[in-house]
């Protein structure tokens, strides 16, 4: 946005002389100096439209108030954000915005995070002078996942600009004129692009509603967990919103290095597997459920102890949903037992890049690079082949399989090999060929229940968090993943592997994910100097890892 180079501009904000880089708009520069200005149509990720006029401020440049979202700062500019004129102007705009707005808040899903509500409270008049009949606009489906309540639309055109600029699909447009204008799709062309869900997030009011979240909960009741999406290797930063232990929706979190302000619909709506009734929720020996998870972990420890010291032939199959911490623990088990570690990947999808630079990775797993960084570049490549032939040739004493795939089918060469070799221990989300014959089946944690770190395809280390474990102790839905996690700080694989190591005598006690990460940072050059606490909210690029998929051995 700044075309005037590195020059600084001196200007006056509410009487205080301040300096800002040239080329900034008043709104952005004021925000940088701590003065938030209201805005509907302005969005940092979209072009400037300047049509809502709620951002009016008084300047010394013109007798009329200026729209701060498009007016740029210049030397000698004096801005009053709360002068009588500015306040009156905003109040007038607010009154106009509310003229035809329905009193829908009680049934509107935006209520609680609605900017119109907030600004009406902060800047609007106390009461309406509008006694005429409000006009009615359409309420209809715009696409398979999105519905519009036209009455609530303030025609800020954010959604339209998104479809034009970011997804590049341009499904939306404004129809009709004056106070009847409203957002619509072209006849027969629904909005169904892979980024469609974002228009709901950026709609400042409750006009666009996601049918997935519609009426599911009131937003103020949701608990927020800042984590990353597990849908693909992109690792979009998201906030998982849960209510009473149930995932309600995923919202993108701003990270201009990864996903800007957006996320794709695959990730957004792809959380339901975590609440699937078919999930493996209790540990079991063969078909018989194990009384307590502790007992199951002791079983695991017993098996690992039997193979400790390299006397037996051990194979470990890892999945790319493991966190770096869990991979580290797998590495310790492998080192102690002399196991061969290979990995399997879910089938890859299409890689998509959008005009707005947003990218969906074709690799449908979150942490291949992290697991590689911990367990070696060849885990999913030649190592996988080695494990496969080892299993196919038979004579393997202990196989530990990790299958945290969010769906039950994983058509990989290794899958059939594991199935053939009668896995002895399987960590799994869903039952598959590998778990049906297993001696010990342990529930995996879903991405929403993990605590640790992921490395995305660019080699960026990011935190995965689970504040409220979905489905934890939810009596309303028996059979749900519940008993397998003992504390909110750790995940089942993390706990199980550590308990096994304690059982063997290789570890003194179980640590939190942060503690395991400390061990990892001490022992692995890629992670040197990192710590959970030191990772910023938007992640940190990992040293020694090449960005964006160039030259890893496994890809070949």
């Amino acid at each position, binding site marked *: 946005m700044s075309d005037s180079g590195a020059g600084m501009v001196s200007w006056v904000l509410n009487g205080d002389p301040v300096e800002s880089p040239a080329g900034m708009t008043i709104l952005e520069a004021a925000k940088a100096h701590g003065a938030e200005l209201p805005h509907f149509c302005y969005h940092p990720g979209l072009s400037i439209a300047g049509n809502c006029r709620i951002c009016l401020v008084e300047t010394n440049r013109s007798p009329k108030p200026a729209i701060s979202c498009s007016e740029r700062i210049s030397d000698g500019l004096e801005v009053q954000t709360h002068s009588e004129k500015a306040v009156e102007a905003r109040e007038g705009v607010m009154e106009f915005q509310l003229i035809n707005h329905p009193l829908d808040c*009680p*049934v509107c899903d935006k*209520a609680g995070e609605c900017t119109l509500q907030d600004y009406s409270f902060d800047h609007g008049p106390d009461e309406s002078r509008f006694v005429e009949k409000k006009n009615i606009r359409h309420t209809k489906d715009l696409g398979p996942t999105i519905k519009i309540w036209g009455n609530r639309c303030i025609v800020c055109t954010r959604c339209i600009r998104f479809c034009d600029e970011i997804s590049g699909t341009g499904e939306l447009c404004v129809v009709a004129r004056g106070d009847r204008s409203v957002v619509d799709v072209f006849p027969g062309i629904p909005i169904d692009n892979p980024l469609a869900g974002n228009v709901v997030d950026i709609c400042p009011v409750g006009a666009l509603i996601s049918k997935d979240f519609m*009426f599911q909960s*009131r937003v103020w*009741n949701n608990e927020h967990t800042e984590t990353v999406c597990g849908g693909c290797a992109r690792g979009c930063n998201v906030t998982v919103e849960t209510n009473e232990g149930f995932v309600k929706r995923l919202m993108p979190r701003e990270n201009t290095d990864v996903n800007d302000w957006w996320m794709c619909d695959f990730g957004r709506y792809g959380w339901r597997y975590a609440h699937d009734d078919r999930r493996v929720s209790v540990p079991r020996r063969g078909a018989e459920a194990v009384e307590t998870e502790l007992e199951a972990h002791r079983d695991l420890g017993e098996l690992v102890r039997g193979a400790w010291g390299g006397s037996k032939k051990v194979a470990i199959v890892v999945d790319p949903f493991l966190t770096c911490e869990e991979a580290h623990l797998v590495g310790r088990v492998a080192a102690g037992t002399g196991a061969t570690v290979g990995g399997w990947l879910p089938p890859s999808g299409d890689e998509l890049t959008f005009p707005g630079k947003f990218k969906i990775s074709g690799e449908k797993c979150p942490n291949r690079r992290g697991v590689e960084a911990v367990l070696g570049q060849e885990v999913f490549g030649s190592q996988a082949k080695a494990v496969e032939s080892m299993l196919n040739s038979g004579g393997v004493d202990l196989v530990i399989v990790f299958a945290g795939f969010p769906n039950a089918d994983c058509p990989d060469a290794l899958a059939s090999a594991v199935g053939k070799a009668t896995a002895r221990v399987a960590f799994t989300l869903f039952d598959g060929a590998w778990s049906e014959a297993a001696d010990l089946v342990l529930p995996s944690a879903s991405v929403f229940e993990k605590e640790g770190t992921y490395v995305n395809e660019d080699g960026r280390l990011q935190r995965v968090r689970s504040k409220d474990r979905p489905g934890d102790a939810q009596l309303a839905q028996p059979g749900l993943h519940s008993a397998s996690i003992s504390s909110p700080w750790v995940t089942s694989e993390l706990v199980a592997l550590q308990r096994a190591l304690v059982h063997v005598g290789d570890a003194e006690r179980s640590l939190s994910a942060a503690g395991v990460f400390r061990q990892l940072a001490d022992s692995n050059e890629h992670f040197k100097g990192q710590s959970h606490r030191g990772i910023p909210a938007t992640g940190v690029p990992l040293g020694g890892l090449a960005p964006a998929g160039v030259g890893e051995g496994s890809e070949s």
Partner: protein
Amino acid sequence: MGHDAHAEPEKKPGKLGLLGKAYLPAIAQGLLHTLGHIVKWDHNTLNYPDEKRAPFPGYRGEHRLTRDEQGREKCVACFMCSTVCPAHCIEIVAEEAPWPDREKRPKIFNIDMMRCIYCGMCEWACPCEAIELTEVFNIPVRTRAEKIYDKERLLSN
């Protein structure tokens, strides 16, 4: 008060005689007082099931979900009542309403009457006059579960 007492220790009402220190006069006084109450023979108790007091206006008893002219619940599942409820005893699950004039309605609407403190805040918060407190206060049950009223029960109250 305590501060004043420190400032003027002389004013302490502690100068009792020997008899007073033995509490005996005060005890006798108290005994006479209570005896007076026995003798007065003025009993405020109502013989409850036989005699009933008309509830005071604004009495806050068990809840009712109100109905509109067509007999449908007025509630639009806005969660205002459950949000304001200080006892967190209202559980609502919303669903899409099948009616053209309304978008949302409660699929589940439970109030845990054992947890409710009958403060009436839900009634105040409701934008649709869909919930109100009645004068009913005497519905005994045998299990706690029966005191968790569901939508049907609340509509019929």
